[in-house]
C-alpha cells in the first residue's frame, strides 16, 4: 500500500505540496512513483521559471514512459532539487523526502483546491 503523509496537499495528478516557511515544495507521491516504476530521468524547469496551477512544468520518466508533472500551485521556481539530476532513483527510495521544485507561491488560496491526506488516500483507492 502506498504511503501518504499527513499535512501535505495532494493533486489528482499525484503531485504533492509541502508548505514550509511560506514556500511550496512540490514532488510526486509514493503512489505515483510505484505506478511509474524505476525513475530514470527527471525533466525539471529552471530557477526563476513561472509555474501555473494545473499546468505542466516538467516530466518524470521511467524506463517505459514519460509522465508529465503538473504544478498543483502557481508561483516562481526558487530552487530545483539538483541531486535528482544524477540520482533520479531517489524518488523511488523516498518520494516525499525528495521534492522536485521549490516554489514561491503567488496565491496560497490555491492550496484549498487540493486534497488532504485522507481525501487523497480515498482518491487512490478509487483508482485501483
Amino acid at each position: 500500500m502506498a504511503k501518504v503523509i499527513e499535512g501535505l496537499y495532494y493533486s489528482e495528478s499525484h503531485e504533492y505540496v509541502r508548505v514550509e516557511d511560506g514556500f511550496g515544495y512540490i514532488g510526486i507521491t509514493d503512489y505515483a512513483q510505484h505506478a511509474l516504476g524505476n525513475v530514470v530521468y527527471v525533466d525539471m524547469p529552471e530557477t526563476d521559471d513561472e509555474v501555473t496551477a494545473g499546468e505542466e512544468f516538467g516530466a518524470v520518466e521511467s524506463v517505459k514512459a514519460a509522465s508529465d508533472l503538473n504544478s498543483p500551485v502557481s508561483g516562481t521556481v526558487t530552487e530545483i532539487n539538483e541531486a535528482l539530476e544524477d540520482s533520479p532513483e531517489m524518488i523511488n527510495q523516498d518520494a516525499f523526502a525528495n521534492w522536485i521544485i521549490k516554489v514561491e507561491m503567488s496565491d496560497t488560496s490555491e492550496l484549498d483546491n487540493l486534497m488532504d491526506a485522507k481525501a487523497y488516500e480515498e482518491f487512490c483507492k478509487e483508482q485501483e
Partner: protein
Amino acid sequence: MENKRTCLYDRHVAQGALISPFGGFDMPIQYTDIKDEHNAVRTACGVFDVSHMGEVIVRGTDAERYVNHIFTNDVTNLPTGKILYGMMLYEDGGTVDDLLVYKMGKNDFFLVINAANIDKDWEWMQRQANGFNIDMHNMSDAYGQIAVQGPQAESVTEQVLGLPCAEMAFYTCKVITSSSDVIISRTGYTGEDGFEIYGSHDTIRTLWDKLMDSGRCKPCGLGCRDTLRFEVGLPLYGDELSAEISPLMAGLGIFCKLDKPEFIGREALLKQKSEGVTRKIVGIELTDKAIPRHGYAVLKEGEKIGEVTTGYHTISTDKSVCMALIDAKHAALGTPVEIQIRKKTFPGTVVKKRFYDKHYKK
C-alpha cells in the same frame, strides 16, 4: 473489441504481473522490475510468454515457390531445420510484416508473424495464394510459445525442460516428440543466446510451470523484451518497419535477396537501391540524460528531418539513445542533430543503431 489472452494469462495474474494491451492481447509487461528482468536475460536466464505471436503453416507441392513469392529472403533448397528471417512486402516496397520462416520438411514451412499483424497478414497471404498448389493454415490460436533467453538458456532448457538443444546451431529448429510435440528453435529477440519453444496450450503451460518451479529462470515481461531488442538494434514492426518503411530504409537489405528472380516488392526495392532511399533508420545518441520517445521530432538546425521510432535510457549501457527515421542526407555517422523533447531541444549525434553487442553462442 475485447483483447485476447494467452494460455499463460492466469499464471501471469497469479504471479502479480502488470498486464497491458499489446498487439490485441492482454500481456504481462513486467512482473517485478523491468531492470531486474532485463539484467536476468543479459546475465543469466529469463523466460517470456510470447504466445501472442502468430503461426502459419504452408504445405504443398508449391510451398517453396509460394514462400519465395511472398518473402524477401531465399528459401530455395533451404535444408530442413533451417530458419530464415525476412519480410513480406507490398508492391511499393512497404513492409507487411517481418517474420521467421522455419523449414520443417520438404514442401513444409512454418511462418512466425507478429501478433498485431496476424489478421492483416493472414488476409494478405491468402490473397497472394492464387495459382499455387498449397495448403495454408493459420495456427495462431492453437500454438502457445515461450522464449527462454540468456547465457544460461541452454542449460536451463536441457536440465529443467529436458529438451536436448546443446548441439543446435543458431537459427535452426527441430521437432521433439515425447509426451507431446514441441517445435524448438535457437532463436530470440534479445541479443542473447536462447530458444523459442512452440507447443499446444497444455504443453506450454507444463513447460512454464517447470521453469517457475526450478527457480533458475526469471519470468520476464514484454517491457524488457523491448529494451533488450532495442539495445541490440533489432527492429519492431510498427516502429522501425511499417507499410511506409521498407527493409532498405531500415537497414535490413541483407535479408532481401534481390538476386532472386521474383518476389512481391522486388521491383520497388531495386528502384530504391539504384536511386538511394530518401529516409533511413539511424541510431542517435544524446549527450544529456533526457529520453527520446517514439514520435518525438528529430531536428537539424531547427528544421524537422524525421522522428524517433524507439528510444530509451538504456539499461545495459546507461545512455540516452534512440532509433529514428530521418532524411537520408543527414544519416551519415557523426552527423550532429537535435531532438525535441517536450519544450526543449537536446543535442545528439548519429551513431550505429547497435547500442550493445549481441552475444549469440552458435
